[in-house]
């Protein structure tokens, strides 16, 4: 009887609690209070949380907020600013750099950030051969001269090295903690490093935040690093909630379940209620491009004249209108507008008559047929299927018949790296602020990914003999000379017409009215320590 009575009481209590739950305001989201976690809706495209292995847009955000870099990028997205390194010097030919570390900088476990950690991090990034290992290409040695002085010696001059060490992938790791959990920076780290799983659940950086929790395809949770003193962290808990598409991100933002949405496309942005939200559309450094591969298997004749004809046949304004509703910009060369060397580049224009004239001169006045495979996906708010269809439509006006085949990204990448694809479309976002990365990826010189993909081995005529020499000159110079060299390089890429950028989609920054400090960073996407609530 007594037991029955106890059970009844328990049941009553539970029922009362449940009823209280029903009637409480906890049912539906309301505006977030200042002490609640700030929620960011975006797609979690994470492939690793290990700085030596991860390489993705969300990785940029994670690394830049958890692992401080030596140098930062200012709010103008071009000036280098002190971060872990309070000052730095380069030798005369920019092949050796000395960094002086902040003696007060501490990792999240309270231990000091020292030169040995920098040397270990850079060695590991190079030797693990993960996503961003190319950033350490040309680094001959990283030497800890004393606890707070690091000397990096390169194989040759690189005026862009300072920009590279502002990239989030070069964030400094607490070497003692990581090594104790299976990480190594040894030459054979690509096979002996066992720390990737550890990095999925732990962090060891000196940035404003540390990892609180990560659930793949669900959420990435940050908590403030109490040892971080460089700026005041106003929002102690931040969650990136995995939200795949722009419409859902907008819904979460409008319902108050998210405070910031990061991947809303311009069309969806038009539907947002601006009386309740801050919606800002700004130019981005991302672009989408058409790529022509003269040496691809099954490619028709694609001489420079024919490639230039393709460039003239494209309706750039129409593409921007069709793919992003006009919310984008033209990019003359495969280097983002605003990066070194891009000032004063000629804007691309459609000229169908000129395209036909060039085709006639090349001996194909009636055009030709060309196969095109493209990744079937949405990138930076642009549906690549729509883009490919628009290009097909434009080229048909000069007699070029494009046979479109959408592919899964993995299949497309296999094909583009294998036999090559005569005509395709793809996308690119900067890894740091600097133009050399574009030459090293798109330039028509031996060994670059796009020289190989365009079939340089089958058709050596696409090699631009000046590119390698000019790039060397650009990397060895500074100031106006550097600007001029990159400008010349950009003009060369425009003339090559292997990569034809067609649209740089604008970026939509959408947030609730209470959020402050939201901005787009060219190096890091989003710097969370600048965020606040009013």
């Amino acid at each position, binding site marked *: 009887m007594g037991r029955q009575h106890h059970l009844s009481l328990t049941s009553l209590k539970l029922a009362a609690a449940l009823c209280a739950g029903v009637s409480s305001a906890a049912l539906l989201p309301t505006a977030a209070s200042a002490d609640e976690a700030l929620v960011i809706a975006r797609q979690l495209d994470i492939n690793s949380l290990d700085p030596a292995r991860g390489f993705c847009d969300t990785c940029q955000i994670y690394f830049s907020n958890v692992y401080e870099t030596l140098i930062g990028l200012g709010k103008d997205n071009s000036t280098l600013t002190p971060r872990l390194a309070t000052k730095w010097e380069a030798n005369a030919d920019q092949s050796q750099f000395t960094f002086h570390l902040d003696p007060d900088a501490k990792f999240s476990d309270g231990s000091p950030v020292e030169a040995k950690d920098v040397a270990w991090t850079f060695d590991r990034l190079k030797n693990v051969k993960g996503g961003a290992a190319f950033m350490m290409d040309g680094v001959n040695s990283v030497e800890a001269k004393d606890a707070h002085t690091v000397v990096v010696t390169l194989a040759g001059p690189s005026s862009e090295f300072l920009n590279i060490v502002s990239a989030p992938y070069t964030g400094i790791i607490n070497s003692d903690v990581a090594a104790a959990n299976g990480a190594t920076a040894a030459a054979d780290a690509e096979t002996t490093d066992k720390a990737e799983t550890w990095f999925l659940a732990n962090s060891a950086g000196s940035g404003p935040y540390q990892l609180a929790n990560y659930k793949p395809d669900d959420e990435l949770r940050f908590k403030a690093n109490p040892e971080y003193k460089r700026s005041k962290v106003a929002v102690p808990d931040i969650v990136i909630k995995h939200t795949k598409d722009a419409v859902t991100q907008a819904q979460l933002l409008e319902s108050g379940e998210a405070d910031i949405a990061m991947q809303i496309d311009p069309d969806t942005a038009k539907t947002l209620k601006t009386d309740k939200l801050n919606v800002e559309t700004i130019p981005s450094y991302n672009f989408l491009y058409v790529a022509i591969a003269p040496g691809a298997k099954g490619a028709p004749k694609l001489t420079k004249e024919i490639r230039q004809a393709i460039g003239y046949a494209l309706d750039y304004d129409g593409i921007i209108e069709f793919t992003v509703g006009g919310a984008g910009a033209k990019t003359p060369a495969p280097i983002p507008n605003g990066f070194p060397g891009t000032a004063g580049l000629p804007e691309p224009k459609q000229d169908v008559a000129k395209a036909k004239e060039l085709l006639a001169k090349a001996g194909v006045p009636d055009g030709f047929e060309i196969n095109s495979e493209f990744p079937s996906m949405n990138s930076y708010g642009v549906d690549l299927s729509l883009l490919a269809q628009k290009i097909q439509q434009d080229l048909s006006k000069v007699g070029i018949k494009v046979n479109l085949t959408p592919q899964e990204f993995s299949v497309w990448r296999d094909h583009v790296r294998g036999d090559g694809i005569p005509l395709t479309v793809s996308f690119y976002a900067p890894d740091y602020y600097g133009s050399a990365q574009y030459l090293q990826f798109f330039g028509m010189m031996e060994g670059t990914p796009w020289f*190989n993909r365009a079939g340089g081995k089958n058709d050596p005529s696409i090699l631009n003999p000046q590119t390698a020499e000019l790039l060397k000159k650009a990397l060895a110079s500074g100031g106006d000379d550097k600007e001029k060299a990159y400008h010349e390089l950009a003009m060369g890429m425009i003339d090559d017409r292997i990569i034809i950028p067609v649209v740089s989609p604008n970026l939509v920054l959408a947030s609730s009215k209470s959020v402050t400090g939201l901005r787009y960073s060219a190096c890091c996407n989003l710097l969370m320590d600048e965020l606040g609530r009013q």
Partner: protein
Amino acid sequence: MTRYIVRRLLSLPLLLLGIVSIAFLISHFTQGDPLSSIVSERQMDDEQAVAAAKARWGLDKSLPEQYLVYVGNLLTGDLGISFRTKQPVSQDLLERLPATLELVIAAMLFGSLTGIALGVVAARFRDRAADHAARLWALTGSSTPVFWSGLILLYIFSVKLGWVPGPGRLDARMSPPDGITGFLTIDALLAGDTALFWDAVHHLILPALVLGWTVMGIVSRLVRASMLDVLNQDYIVAARARGAGELRVLLNHALRNALVPTLTIIGFTFAYLITGAVLTEAIFSWTGIGSYAVDAARGLDYPAIMGVTIVGGAAFLLTNLMTDIAYAFADPRIRLS
């Protein structure tokens, strides 16, 4: 009956091995490069990096070798590491399976119970307004694609009316309860956190309705057809002649017999939904097996594809067995041997 069940259980591993072998071959003969999930675009042109990645993930071995290694590991319970999440596949599945089961069970309960009720009402009032309304509702449920109904219902009830929360299993500002069962509703109750429990329930309502509507459509049409058959049988006439009440005739005499074919459908639908709730999971950002399977397939994440196949195969085999057993209980004339 016991011998039958033991025999069926003993045959499960062999059947699973068959499923694993076929899935292994199909996934490995698919076009595309699994390295795209592992090696970044810039590193793909670095032969050393590609070779290191292949060696690390066992992709440098021949297909028969890869198969033997996989099956060998499988026997020890090791499903491998996901190329994409970099976590053990078994851990990924354990994290996601409860999410799917929570959704599917809620959807099945809603769909089956309302489907049976609608089927009975439709059969009882054959060719009258209630029958037409029930059939129209059922037809709409079974023929409306979930990607459409999900988005529309989400827009109306979450964005416009604000009656239910948006996508996800829990408000992102809340910390999930300690994962004892993985069912957020149960774990929240076990943790004594009623606010968390109600938040989980409210997040469950809309996806369960969307998924359950399809089930309801199928079940109600089947129950209606079976009920119409049964209601014409002599024993129903006899029951009525003996003065049995209409409710008793419908529920005790007719429905019990009409449910036998429905059980098969409910069983198969349950198994199907475990791996087939893909669209619902995608629309409602539900981190379950379905969305995991899609991401695995798109990224050619072989270990994850195999893991999902094993779970899906086991679900079909087990529900098939349970349906057969339930058959025997529902209809004593059926003898399993």
